[in-house]
């Protein structure tokens, strides 16, 4: 139950995830942490290396293209 009526059970995606994690608060917190680590891993390992060449930050050579 929220502080404001429109929070009732409708608190966005993070709230949705929190509510669907099993266990008590500590288990939920631990699972959340695992999820965060997993997301950061996927970003660093796959998403950022893929996105980096598409962004204009790291061209160092001179070329005529």
């Amino acid at each position, binding site marked *: *139950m*929220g*502080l404001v*009526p*429109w*929070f*009732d*059970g*409708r*608190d*966005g*995606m*993070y*709230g949705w*995830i*929190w*509510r669907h994690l099993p266990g008590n*608060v500590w288990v*939920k*917190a631990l699972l*959340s942490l695992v*999820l*965060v680590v*997993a*997301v*950061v891993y996927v*970003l*660093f390992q796959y998403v*950022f290396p893929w*996105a*980096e*060449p598409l962004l*204009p*930050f*790291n*061209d*160092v*050579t*001179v*070329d*005529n293209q």
Partner: protein
Amino acid sequence: MAATTDTDHEEQTDAPGGQPAPPPRGRGRIALAVSVFGELLITAGLVTGLFVVYSLWWTNVMADRAADRQGDQVRDDWAEGRGGSGGPGALDTKAGIGFLHVPTMSRGEVLVEKGTSMKVLNDGVAGYYTDPVKAELPMTGKKGNFSLAAHRDGHGAKFHNIDKIEKGDPIVFETKDTWYVYKVYGILPETSKYNVDVLGKVPEESGKEKAGHYITLTTCTPVYTSRYRYVVWGELVRTEKVDGERTVPDELR
């Protein structure tokens, strides 16, 4: 989807009591849309922040690790008598051809490998140009331009302090058998990335008109962007044979 938790929300959803009655439909939907949108914005901010951490820190960690490994490999090969001597055919170009020492730019050494593709440079090494202008390697003994590129930021950031180099500073290239000692004579702090003339056999923009043994370092500028290119030119002053202990030339002491 990213998973972080918002303490305010935790308290609300964890408060004792069953599921509350659903709120009026229209308002609930809008509220939901707004809160999801807000969380997407927060997520985008976090992801952007993480990308900065990735670019400026993590890529350096990975690149330094790769460069150290490949540099050790080259040193091992040299110690065991592979690579180096002989004509260009005898060079194991894939593993790296030597090390660049620029005392005013960085204390360490920079491994030099073939090519300037991101795949090569992202390992925290400097690459010699094969395209659009082929670099003339110093060990061929021919006159020409030994043109190199490396990252300014991230991926080892080997040329990060290129702006610390001044005219007269030494650039030393180390191969298995020889130290090639260059002296910086020209600096171009900003040029277009299309300016391939700076890599020319005789880089005229540096003020030279005759063929000689030149070295050219290129990287991007200003820092943290790729808008322009920074160019440093040097000319070969002398070469020194590598002795048994690999005693470094005076310029590196």
